[in-house]
């Protein structure tokens, strides 16, 4: 079992499971930092996944598919922006409504375009390429992890750097943090919180789109109804664990990915009841949130 956990394959596949969670977590991060809760990441990923894969199939270009997925992600975010920022509805309730919309909409799009309701495996998409660097990929243990991955793995690393930079070194980042921290104070110095929140939601949509595209254009070449399978929500948990810090969030996403893969992969090496294995990612979420709550409480009592 130890050998399994430290195997090259384990690391590489954990990343595969971590990537959609990571993009979801970044989507949650940027909107949370701007003070708007978006729980529709799951739904955005699902609609982006189906649109991206279909665009990739019909155009034959993965670049176009990826762009479509990101645009659709932004579109879904804008629905939330319209509801929560323009109409001032409760963003949480609107998010729930949008998730319901997305469940139906994704299958509806599939049905409208292909006439099937289950999956688009009869229309495989143009896949987002894998980047495999010769020689470097043969480095033991970390070679395949770092140098033989989907293009989106490298995009994810860039996104982490980008987020750190954005939040700490740019005007927009400062505005986002200010608005998230205290909208009234931000407004008093001439920042329009709604504009800032909308910008954050656009980024949130881009990340959701990337997460969806990874599932339906990189890991699998097709969309299947229900394929997001809670990854959007696990991403939100990872973001909570990472307390809004991009690097920590990325690390926790990787941990969640590893636990998820462990629950799958361990079935092949361990004789352990599968039912318990399958609950691991959720138990892990619970434990993580408990630790998080305890830390927060300690902080407060020290004040």
């Amino acid at each position: 079992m130890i050998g399994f956990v430290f195997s090259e394959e384990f690391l590489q596949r954990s990343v595969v499971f971590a990537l959609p969670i990571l993009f979801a977590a970044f989507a949650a991060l940027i909107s949370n930092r701007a003070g708007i809760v978006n729980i529709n990441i799951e739904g955005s990923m699902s609609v982006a996944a189906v649109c991206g894969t279909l665009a990739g199939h019909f155009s034959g270009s993965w670049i176009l598919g990826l762009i479509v997925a990101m645009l659709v992600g932004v579109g879904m975010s804008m629905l939330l922006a319209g509801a929560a920022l323009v109409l001032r509805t409760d963003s949480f309730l609107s998010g729930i409504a949008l998730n319901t919309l997305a469940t139906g909409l994704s299958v509806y799009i599939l049905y409208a375009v292909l006439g099937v309701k289950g999956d688009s495996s009869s229309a495989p998409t143009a896949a987002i390429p894998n980047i495999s660097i010769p020689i470097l990929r043969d480095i033991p243990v970390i070679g395949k992890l770092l140098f033989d991955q989907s293009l989106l793995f490298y995009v994810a690393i860039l996104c982490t750097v980008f987020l750190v930079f954005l939040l700490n070194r740019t005007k927009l980042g400062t505005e986002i943090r200010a608005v998230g921290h205290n909208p009234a104070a931000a407004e008093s110095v001439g920042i329009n919180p709604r504009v800032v929140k909308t910008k954050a939601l656009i980024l949130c949509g881009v990340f959701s789109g990337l997460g969806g595209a990874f599932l339906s254009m990189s890991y699998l070449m097709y969309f299947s109804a229900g394929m997001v399978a809670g990854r959007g929500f696990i991403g939100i948990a990872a973001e909570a664990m990472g307390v809004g810090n991009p690097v920590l969030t990325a690390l926790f996403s990787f941990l969640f990915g590893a636990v998820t893969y462990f629950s799958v992969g361990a079935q092949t090496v361990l004789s352990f009841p599968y039912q318990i294995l399958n609950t691991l990612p959720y138990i892990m979420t619970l434990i993580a949130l408990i630790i998080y709550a305890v830390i927060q409480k300690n902080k407060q009592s020290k004040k």
Partner: protein
Amino acid sequence: MKKLLSVIFAILMMTSILFSAVSCGENPAGPNAGQSQTSGVADIHDGKFRVALLINGDLGDMSFWDSANEGMLRFQKDHPEADVKIVEMGSSDPTVYESTLAKTAAEAYDLIIVGTTDMREPLQRLVKKEKYADRRFVIFDTEIKDGKAADYKTVHSIMFNQNEGGYLAGVLASLMSLDAGSANTAFIGGAPNDIINDFASGFMQGVRAVNAERSASIGAFHSFIGDFSDSPKGKSLAETYYSGNDVSVLFAAASQAGIGCVEAATLTGHTIIGVDSDQYAFYKDSNPAKAAAIVTSIEKRVGDTLYEVCEKFMADTLTYGDLEVLGIKDGKIGYVDNDNFKALVSEANRAYLADVAAKIASGELKIESGLKRYTTSAELTALYDSLDPTKK
């Protein structure tokens, strides 16, 4: 401006509800001919045969429900005088099952067909009501109540011997593994429910039988995805078997999530045995690479079964208050003998498999059931463990 946006948003929300309804395919409109206002239950004695199939899942699974759907559509085509309605209730909201069933029963349907264990309790409650006494019901893939079919005088129960199908898959997988020099094969199920366990149990018995006869020791993994829709997880599981565990052919009974396993087989250049419908035929034209990885599919011919049920009903030969068990001998369980099967499986192995199927059909070979009413979970686990490479 704000008012306008509110209106737009309200419309959006309405569409959202509409979309979910459309994607579930639920169509509440039905024949209300002769609906009696007093009891709320329509009169069915108008000389027209109306049948409804309620699907408590999603179409597009390329296996179980698609097969059922296809059978009913074929029946409608061959019998234009009948009125066939198919209601897709979806898998996401089980709370609509009971109300949809009651609604359908109140309309003028002579025969209402439902399937799987999820529909047992709603149907049990419904048929107890006197006002539906002239309706007839068929429940397939389960018995209305274990061992109690006779108590439900208007219900015909149909079960399938999927253990026989699993057995064929097990025999084929181990024969192919022997030829390929692979040490192991594997079974991947959606979730460990009764039906999937029956498949798995048959599969293990098939592997065991080949091992005994060829004095081989092919190992057989078993694992479950956890649901029937997480295809990325299905792909990952299959990939792990193919790439790291010396498996060259496996059997996946996991509906849509199983399509992820097919993808893994395609990418790693291995083969897979499909389930329920002829999955090779689905991909033959649209995705030849994927089709080529599917050796054969273990068919559970739900569509043919429902077709015959409707014909029997029209001929007034369908019986009620009983349980019918269908298997290889009835032609309702089998494997697909197509071009790809001929290309991938040696002639000797094909003959061997055909012989096994014939022996099961004649009753010479009896496959033990994996259903919990016949087998305890301890026995089942012991069977799985006896072949599990991680336990060796």
